[in-house]
């Protein structure tokens, strides 16, 4: 049976006002004919209109419908219904006709979509020549983009980053746009980050690190023909080649019970991307899954935070498979996270991963941690006393200190080679989200 938590419902709300209104509607007095089954919830909400609104929702939050005229997605009625479900206030009952009709219509739409995708996939197979032509066009555009970027980095080093031309964020932002035109969005994002760092007066070190990563990718790209398939895939992904979902799903999957250990939301150009980090209880392998959506309709996490799910994860191709897709999952409930690591294990794993994919960034982990001060700066120490610098705002630092109480406490975080970011922590048996949204 699917379960949804109040935090997950809050994350679905398009704005604070909707969340508040939804909360206000999470009372039986506002509803009639409420109910739920293993996957869906429903009810009739009395609104300002003559007849009540028909409200239906999938309990993952991934699909919903309401007959009210609101343009917000989801509307307050859907949120109210999901809050009631999260409170356990919905009785189990058979689906009424309007819900059955909606579920069938959704299933039919999903089937049609699958058919369309399958047809599109088979069309591509048929048009092998066209596919080859498109690949060549893209490769040629990418090659030009790479050449331009090599030129930019070389010139920047010759004239120096303090030169007025290269200290100007607009130069980098303009180049980022040209990388997008060259169908190299991965490179574009990194160049854009250099511009953003210069614009906000970031440290020289941050800019140099980004330039170093770009140079690594460009050098790897130059010798990609001599590399094995996995490394070629890694370089392609770093440059920004989009791997079709079908291709990922056709590759071999990894079966396990996955603990959804951490999550965070990243906003870029008014698009929200939710990142969830999962670790296999048996395989001990880490993957992350993404879901994206516009700010007006926030995405739902690919897997439910803090829960254990049985699923077959399909990793994206690459020398260091880190991102994965989960075509389906079964929620098997909440239970404590897997055995924690110590920082020495995390650092060793991070070093091994960098040897495989040196431009990669984060290593996710579960460890027992508590806040300390190390070399005069904020840090997190593990149960053996080893500490790593901690990037955190004041309010979250105090909150984490309160939760830990000076004792190593189970937590999930990521290490990027310099600092740790905390994503989740155990508060007396509740696995809570402590991530900071990243713009």
């Amino acid at each position, binding site marked *: 049976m699917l379960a949804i938590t109040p935090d997950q419902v809050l994350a679905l709300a398009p704005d604070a006002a909707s969340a508040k209104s939804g909360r206000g509607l999470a009372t039986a007095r506002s509803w009639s004919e409420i109910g739920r089954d293993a996957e869906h919830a429903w009810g009739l909400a009395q609104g300002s209109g003559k007849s009540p609104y028909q409200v239906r929702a999938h309990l993952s939050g991934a699909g919903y419908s309401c007959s009210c005229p609101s343009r917000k997605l989801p509307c307050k009625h859907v949120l109210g219904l999901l809050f009631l479900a999260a409170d*356990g206030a919905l009785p189990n009952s058979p689906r009424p006709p309007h819900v059955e009709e909606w579920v069938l219509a959704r299933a039919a739409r999903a089937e049609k979509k699958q058919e369309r995708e399958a047809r599109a996939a088979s069309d591509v197979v048929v048009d092998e020549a066209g596919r080859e032509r498109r690949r060549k066009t893209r490769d040629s555009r990418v090659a030009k983009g790479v050449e331009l970027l090599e030129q930019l980095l070389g010139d920047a080093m010759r004239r120096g980053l303090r*030169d007025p031309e290269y200290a100007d964020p607009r130069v980098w932002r303009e180049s980022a746009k040209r990388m997008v035109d060259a169908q190299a969005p991965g490179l574009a994002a990194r160049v854009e980050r250099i511009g953003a760092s210069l614009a906000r007066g970031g440290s020289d070190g941050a800019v140099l690190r980004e*330039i170093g990563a770009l140079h690594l990718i460009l050098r790897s790209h130059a010798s990609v023909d001599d590399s094995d398939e996995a490394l070629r895939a890694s370089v392609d992904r770093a440059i920004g080649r989009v791997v079709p979902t079908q291709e990922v799903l056709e590759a071999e999957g990894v079966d396990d019970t996955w603990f959804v250990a951490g999550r965070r939301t990243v906003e870029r150009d008014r698009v929200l991307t939710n990142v969830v980090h999962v670790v296999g209880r048996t395989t001990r392998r880490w993957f992350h899954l993404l879901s994206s959506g516009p700010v007006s309709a926030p995405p739902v996490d690919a897997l439910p935070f803090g829960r254990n799910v049985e699923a077959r994860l399909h990793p994206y191709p690459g020398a260091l498979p880190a991102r994965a897709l989960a075509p389906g999952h079964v929620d098997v409930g909440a239970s404590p996270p897997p055995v924690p690591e110590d920082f*020495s294990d995390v650092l060793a794993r991070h070093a091994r991963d960098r040897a495989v994919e040196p431009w990669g960034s984060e290593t996710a982990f579960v460890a027992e941690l508590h806040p300390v001060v190390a070399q005069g700066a904020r840090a997190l120490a593990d149960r053996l006393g080893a500490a790593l610098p901690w990037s955190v705002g004041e309010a979250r630092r105090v909150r984490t200190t309160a939760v830990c109480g000076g004792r190593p406490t189970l937590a999930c975080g990521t290490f990027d080679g310099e600092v740790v970011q905390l994503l989740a922590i155990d508060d007396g048996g509740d696995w809570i989200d402590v991530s900071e949204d990243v713009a």
Partner: protein
Amino acid sequence: MSSDEWRVTALLGTSRSTGSPACPHPGLESVWSALGADGPARAVLDACALSLVASSAGALPLEADDPVAAAPVEERPRVGARRADALRRMIAGEHAECLVEWLDACIAANEVVTSRDLPVLLDLGRRDASKRTRIVHVMGTRGAWLASHESSWPWAIESTELDDDVWVHGSEPERAAYLARAQDTDPERAAALVTEEWSTASADFREAMLAVVVRAPHPCLEGVLESKALSDRRASTRRLAVAALVRIPGSGLTTRAFERARRILVRGTGSVASLVLELPHDRELGQGVDGLDPKPPKGCGARAHVARQLLARVPIASWCAHFGVDAAELFRANSDPEWRDVVTAGFADSMRLLPQPDCAVDFLRGVLLAQEWHVGLLGTRESWTVGWMEELPHETVDALVEALFERETDVDLLVAVLLATGRTLDGANAARCSSVVLSWFLADRVRANADAAYLALCIAPTEIRSVLARIASLDRLSSAAEAFARTLEFRTTYLEPSQER
């Protein structure tokens, strides 16, 4: 070129340096030579890349500066999920008026707050001193531990063991807690500590010290308050200094304020006793002197603002003696329609700065009855009158409510008092209160949603279900009645833990 100079070259440019950069780290020599950079610019880029990988993959753990003692184990149970969720909703701004009742429910159940909610709850206590005693009850050992390690909540650790060394070597929160202990046991010593410390204390600690002693300042403090605190750089510290000086009987500040105030609040010339406010001239404002706030709030003139502050510093008893009247006559005499509000606000501020419970009932009657400031005219709880009434002792409110129940003509005033104080009536008055409040909603007499929420607080827990049943049977609900019902429903989430799912 040394191993670090590649960074300088990257910033200044290879065109301004001589030669190629050296290997960025001695441990990377073999990789560096294998790379065989083609030209200085390429060598700097290689150094960038190598340095990135080396620092990321070669990161080493640090050693913590000072070990932190762990918090004692909490013996009391934590609040359940429904109560914890209710707290988070209140902190987010929903039904904030219910917080005191929520705290009381936790205290009655001997429960402590979940650790993650402690910082926001303690912050709330920092902003609102009236809730501190309750917060200290529910924060548990984890809260005390947290307050002793953070600087923001010294009031939360006042009851823990502190020896004399703390004043010399302790953190600011511990020192403030030590001062609070001294204030309780030996106010004269507390005054001496503040006087000695003032000139070397940080701005935060100066304010923290005054926040401790303002409750019952010793006369010895008058010197430092007059000479230093009244002209402190921080406005909040100046306000605390004024409050402390008003509470020192016969202080110079009160005497000077009365001298000025009696020139502006005078007896009228008509046949009926009345007070007339003659606003001070611009040249007499003396803004910034004696801690007078020079900036009037929006909608208030500078002269009226100064007049209100001067009135606030004079005890009601001084006016009674000055005009030769009792408190009831004094409040009745404040009838000049032009400046009545300013004078009433000044009196209310005076009662807030220097609690004068003897005048409370007279003041209520003077304001609410004589001037017909009933619920409809009272506006909402945002009005200054309400702020004052909230601070009335519970016994005073209960006695007033009891008296008002006896007189049917005073029903409007009863609702006004309930609205203003948000007092939950229980025992024999519970059912009567429900009936009166419901009748107001049935007659559509409550318009503002905020007022409706406060009236919901007056309903006893034992009455909530029956009142909700009555409301559910209505065909149509006004917006205020809806807000009333929602507040009642919200109250059940923390008052009925047996419903925990």
